[in-house]
C-alpha cells in the first residue's frame, strides 16, 4: 500500500513539475530576450586593499582618524551614525580629553531642557551617540529629492564586499558610457539622479559627495586626493560597522591554536586507545 501510494504521489509531483518545465521552456524559447542595462553595465566593486583586511589585518588608526574627519566634514550633512557613540572614538587613538572635545564639536544633539521640558539641541558629550542630520525620515526625504540617505553605521556590512563597495561608489561617478547608450538608447539618468556604475540600478540619488582634491584639509598633513579621502572614509565606515573586528580576529588566532593543540592531543589519545583493539587473530 505504502509503495503504491508513494508511486502515485511521486509520479503526480513529477508530472506537475514537468508540466511547469515544458511551459517555462516554451516561453523561454519563444520570448524575446530583453536585456537590462542594470545587469549588463553594473560593475562589481573595485579591488582595493585595506589595512584591516585578512586574518592578520589591523586598523590603521591614522587612516581611521582621517576617515572620521571626512565623515564629519562631508557625509554628516546627510548621513547619521546612530549606533556609534562619541566615547567609541577613544578606540581610534584619541585620549579622554580629545574625545570630550570631539563630542562637543557636534552642537546638534537633541535633548529635553531640564527646566522647561522643551525640545532643544546641545553640544555632545562622550556618552551620546552621533546625532542624525534630519529630525525624521520625512525631513530627510524632503531635503534629498525623495531619497532617504541611509544611516551609515552598518553600511559596509549591509552590502556585499562592503568596504570596497563604498570606495567604488564614491569614486564611481561619471558620464554614461557610450556602449550603454548605443545598446539602450532609451536609458537615461533622470533629473536629481546621478549615473554611477557601481550602484545596482546605475542611477543614485546621492550627488557625488567627494568631488575635488583637498576638499578636506587633513590634520595629519596627508595629501587629500579624491581616492585618498574615499579610501579613508571607507575604512572609517568599516570600523563603525564592526568596531570589534580586529579584536575578533586576534581572539580567533588564540582559539584556533588552542583547538589545534587539543585536537592533535585528542588524535594521539584516540590512536593509543584504539591500539588495544587492533585486530588480533582469533585463533
Amino acid at each position, binding site marked *: 500500500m505504502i509503495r503504491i501510494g*508513494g*508511486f502515485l504521489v511521486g509520479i503526480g509531483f513529477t508530472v506537475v513539475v514537468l508540466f511547469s518545465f515544458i511551459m517555462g521552456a516554451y516561453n523561454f524559447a519563444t520570448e524575446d530576450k530583453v536585456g537590462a542595462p542594470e545587469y549588463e553595465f553594473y560593475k562589481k566593486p573595485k579591488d582595493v586593499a585595506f589595512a584591516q583586511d585578512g586574518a592578520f589585518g589591523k586598523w590603521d588608526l591614522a587612516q581611521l582618524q582621517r576617515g572620521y574627519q571626512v565623515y564629519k566634514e562631508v557625509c554628516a550633512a546627510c548621513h547619521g551614525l546612530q549606533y556609534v557613540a562619541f566615547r567609541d572614538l577613544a578606540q581610534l587613538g584619541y585620549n579622554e580629553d580629545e574625545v570630550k572635545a570631539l563630542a562637543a564639536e557636534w552642537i546638534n544633539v537633541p535633548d529635553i531642557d531640564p527646566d522647561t521640558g522643551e525640545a532643544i539641541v546641545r553640544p555632545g558629550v562622550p556618552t551620546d551617540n552621533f546625532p542624525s542630520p534630519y529630525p525624521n525620515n520625512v525631513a530627510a526625504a524632503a531635503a534629498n529629492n525623495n531619497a532617504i540617505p541611509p544611516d551609515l553605521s552598518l553600511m559596509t556590512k549591509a552590502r556585499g564586499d562592503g568596504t570596497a563597495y563604498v570606495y567604488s561608489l564614491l569614486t564611481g561617478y561619471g558620464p554614461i558610457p557610450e556602449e550603454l547608450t548605443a545598446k539602450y538608447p532609451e536609458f537615461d539618468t533622470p533629473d536629481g539622479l546621478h549615473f554611477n556604475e557601481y550602484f545596482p540600478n546605475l542611477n543614485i540619488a546621492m550627488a557625488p559627495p567627494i568631488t575635488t582634491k583637498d576638499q578636506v584639509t587633513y590634520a595629519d598633513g596627508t595629501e587629500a586626493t579624491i581616492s585618498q579621502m574615499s579610501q579613508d572614509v571607507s575604512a572609517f565606515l568599516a570600523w563603525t560597522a564592526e568596531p570589534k573586528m580586529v579584536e575578533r580576529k586576534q581572539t580567533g588566532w588564540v582559539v584556533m591554536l588552542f583547538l589545534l593543540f587539543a585536537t592533535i592531543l585528542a588524535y594521539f589519545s584516540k590512536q593509543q586507545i584504539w591500539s588495544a583493539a587492533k585486530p588480533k587473530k582469533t585463533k
Partner: protein
Amino acid sequence: MSFPWARQYEPTNGFMKFLDERLPLPRLVYNAVGAGYPVPRNLSYMWNFGVLAGFFLVAQIVTGVVLAMHYAANAEVAFGTVEHIMRDVNWGWLMRYAHANGASFFFIVVYIHIFRGFFYSSYKAPREMIWLLGVVIFLLMMATAFMGYVLPWGQMSFWGAKVITGLFGAIPLVGEPLQVWLLGGFAPDNAALNRFFSLHFLLPFVIAGVVILHIWALHIPGSSNPTGVEVKKESDTLPFHPYYTAKDGFGLGVILLFFAFMVFFLPNTLGHPDNYIEANPLATPAHIVPEWYFYPFYAILRAFTFDFILSAKLWGVLAMFAAILVWFFLPWLDRSPVRSGHYRPLFRKFFWFGLIPCMVVLFICGGAPAEEPFVMISQIATAYYFLHFLVILPIVSSIEKPEPLPYSITEAVLGEDEDATLGATAAAKA
C-alpha cells in the same frame, strides 16, 4: 536493553554506591555512553555526526540563553538591541556569531547524519523509530531556525517571514484567515516577532526532549555499522567508553576548528548582507532568499510555476512539505534486505550519481534568483527528487542483486571469523 555481554556498573566509592542505590544516575550514564554500552567495533567517522549534532544543540541553547538576556523582541528596538549585543555587551559579538554560525553547523552535521542514514539505510528495521524521531527533530530544527532568523528584524528577517508565512495563504478556503492568525496581523509585526521569540526559545527544549527519545530508541538495537550486518557476539563490539568517547572527542576537535574559523574569520559569509539593514515593510529586497540550509527546499517550492488544476503556489507548498515527509516512509519504500550501500551496486549508483547531484543542483538553484535557466534546472531536479525516493528506490530495492556480505563484523574487521561455517555467509544474506 543491551547485549548480554554488556558490562555492569560497579560503584567504585561510597558516595557513588550511595547515589546509585537512591538515584541510579551514574548507572544510566554508564549504560548510555559509558563502558556499559557495547558498540559495533567497525563504525566509521560517519558515525560521529550524531554526537556532534548533540554538541551543537547544547551550544545553541547556551549561546541562545545568553543572547536572550540582552535582546528585546519589539519591532521598534529589536534591530538596535542586536547591535547593542555586538558593540556594548562583553563578548556579545562572540555569542551572536557563535549562535548564528552554530545554526549553520548544526544543519551541516545533521545533513551529513541524515545522508549517512540514506547511504547505509539506517532507517530499516529494527531502527524505524529512531529514523522517524530523527525526521521529527529535523522538522523542529527547521521551524526553530526559521523563527530565529526573524528575530534580528533585518530586511531578510522581515521579508523571509512574509514569504514563508504567505505560503499558508495558498491553502484553499482557510489559508488567509490561518495566515492572519499565525502572524497576529496582516503582515509580520510586533505580534509576530513576539510569538516567534517565544517559540524560538521553547522549541530547542522540545528538540532536546525528542533527542532523548531518539537516543533511547537507538539503545534498543544499538547502532548499525558500515557493513549493515547486525552484531552477533561480543567480538563484534567494543565498549563505547573509552573507544568511541575518544573517537568522538577527536571528531569534535576537527569540527570545532572549522567552526572557530567561520566564527572568527568569516562570521557573516553564511548570512545575507541585507539583514544588516533594519526591516522596512516599504522596501522589498531585490532577491528574497532564506538561509542557505533551506535552499534545496526553497528550490522545490519555486519549481512549480504554472497552475495545474491547483494553483502553482499550492503545488509548490505541497511539494516542499512532501519533500521532507517522504523521509518518514523510507523504511517501507526500500524493501532490500541488505542495509549498507557498500553491498548494493545499483542503489549505490543512484545515491552517488542521482541523489547527491540532485541535492547539489537544488541547493544552487534555491540560492539563485528565480530566473532562467535556474528555474528549468530546478524543475528537472525536483522531478528527480520525487522519482528517486518514490519510484526508483522501491524498484531498485526489489530488483537489484546485492553483493556477498561478510558473515559478521568480526569477519569484516579481522578478515576471518572462526564461527563462520561454509554456507553461513549465504544463509546470513538471505
